């Protein structure tokens, strides 16, 4: 768990996927959300990774068609 209520870019991005997967405890979630809201660079990165995650998950129905 992140001890303080503020985090820097590195700390926020180390928890990026936990943040997007919704696996963070509420205090960490709030701290990272606050950082992302204030940091343009991190916000852009989060938005792209969120898009990537949705794109991967949208392929769910085609997983059975994967071929060697």
């Amino acid at each position: 768990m992140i001890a303080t209520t503020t985090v820097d870019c590195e700390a926020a991005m180390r928890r990026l996927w936990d943040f997007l997967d919704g696996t963070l405890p509420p205090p960490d979630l709030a701290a990272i959300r606050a950082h992302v809201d204030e940091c343009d660079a991190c916000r852009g990165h989060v938005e792209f990774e969120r898009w990537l995650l949705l794109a991967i998950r949208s392929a769910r129905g085609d997983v059975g068609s994967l071929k060697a």
Partner: protein
Amino acid sequence: MTTVMQRPTTADDISGEFERVALPHLGAVARFALSLARDAADADDLVQETFLRAFRGWHTYLAGSDARRWLFTICRNAFIRLRQRQARFVESDEGDLDALPAVAEHAQAMGDGRIAALATLDVRPAILAAVDALPEPHHSILVLVDLEEHSYEEAAAVLEIPVGTVRSRLFRARRMVQASLLAHAEDAGLRPMRGDR
């Protein structure tokens, strides 16, 4: 008062319970097997082996528990044994999650137009190809969590690895898919030439 679920004792009853509880997951297991084996014939063998082992070990199945997860674990273990027999399965070290390089890579892709290019492309085929190309053990973890919708904890149980290992493998797998997509954008010719910027 604790209710103890009665398990069948006759061969007919066992078969009936197996058909009722395990067989409905045949499709999901077949998809998982195909995603692991990446070969239709190997996947068929894997499914057959999975259900054979499941039937033989049906007495170890805890009545009322998650049968799909139980079958996935058997399937995964059968796959590992298959790969070990074929001497092709290699476990890799994970390293750290390289958080800041990922941010820098994204910033570079924003600057040179690859991110914008992706928005104009049908990325579904590229994602399927990228997922298919993932090496083990990253392929399995991405399939389990992102495609089969298992939680980190469920994936850890299926693969019999710590949750922290699930996390690091999954994040690295997603980064590999991301790198493939950015390369796809570049290959599609949508990336501005360096001299144009």
